[in-house]
């Protein structure tokens, strides 16, 4: 008898106390599965270390050039290559690339463009100085040699 009474009193509300946990679960799921960098680095990147590092205030003004030996040696050879965005380019393309990057900035900021040179430590100065020459041609004279902090021992 008492059983029937209980059934008629059944709660029709959905319990929502676990909702935050579900939200958290979703948040973590997407945190784990999202990859921040959408471009693959095609060249070796062992950034050299230095002590006198400076930080740039405005990230939107930075464009990156990656220099190093290609990871896929069979396809691209062993000579150091330059990667801009997600393709390998030659030194001759740098002026064009800088102008494209400048176009993406607002007019007032165009001359403040900073090139961050992410070069592998095995690279020789030859290719680096060629790049610097092209950057001068393209009038992108603010250059940053990307490096990580060296801990004094």
């Amino acid at each position, binding site marked *: 008898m008492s059983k029937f009474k209980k059934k008629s009193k059944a709660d029709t509300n959905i*319990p929502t*106390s*676990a909702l*935050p*946990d579900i939200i*958290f679960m979703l948040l*973590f799921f997407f*945190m784990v599965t999202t990859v921040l*960098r959408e471009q693959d680095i095609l060249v070796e990147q062992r950034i*050299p270390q*230095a*002590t*006198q*590092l*400076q*930080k*740039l*205030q405005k*990230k939107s003004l*930075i464009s990156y050039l990656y220099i190093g030996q290609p990871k896929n040696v069979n396809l691209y050879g062993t000579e150091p290559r330059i990667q801009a965005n997600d393709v390998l380019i030659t030194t001759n393309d740098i002026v064009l690339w800088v102008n494209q990057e400048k176009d993406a900035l607002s007019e007032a900021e165009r001359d403040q463009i*900073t090139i*961050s*040179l992410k*070069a*592998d*430590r*095995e*690279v*020789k*100065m*030859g290719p*680096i*100085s060629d790049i*610097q020459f092209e*950057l*001068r*041609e393209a*009038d992108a*004279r*603010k*250059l*940053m*040699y*990307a*490096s*990580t*902090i060296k801990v004094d021992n």
Partner: protein
Amino acid sequence: MARKKARMSQEVSTGSMADIAFLLLIFFLVTTTIASDRGILTILPPKQDPNVPPPDIKLNERNIFNILVNANNQLLVEGEFRDNTQGLSEDIKSFILNFGAPDEEAQALYNSLPATLKAQANMDPTSSDHPMSGGAVVSIKTDRGTGYETYLEVLDLVKRAYFEVYAERVGLTADEYRALSSDNAGEIELINRGKEEIPMAISIAEPEKIGGE
């Protein structure tokens, strides 16, 4: 017996869920590295017009601190062979602050320096005249075959010498000086006071065609 089973709670206990969530959050906070945009800043010289010959700048040999790095990553500092970069930063610093033959303006600059920097002025007539523009210049020249890492190490040491001078002028350490941001008027004032009249005169020469490609 049957009654007890029916009463058993069917909910999973969620009391510790928040703790698990926090643990995960802290784990990802710690392990995630955001690509940092830090590095050594330089300004390249302006483009050269091929029709205009490069400006003929007259500088006395004593005002130039020559650093040559060859394709074997060996150094020639002021004509002297070196195998490593030990003590290079100190040498550059005493070169910058030499005040061998200061003119009137440079003498005023010298008088404005704090005592610790004044003590470093050797007044050697065979070294740089003064650190103002037209005075001391540090020149780095590499071969095409020089390693980028060695070049960056040398450039880093030259920068260090200058930053230490700037920082000492405003009574900070070099690390604190470099961390000053240009967002804040007070900090901009400190930055400018540090480097006032002592330009970072680093000349990076076109590499010699040895050892590359």
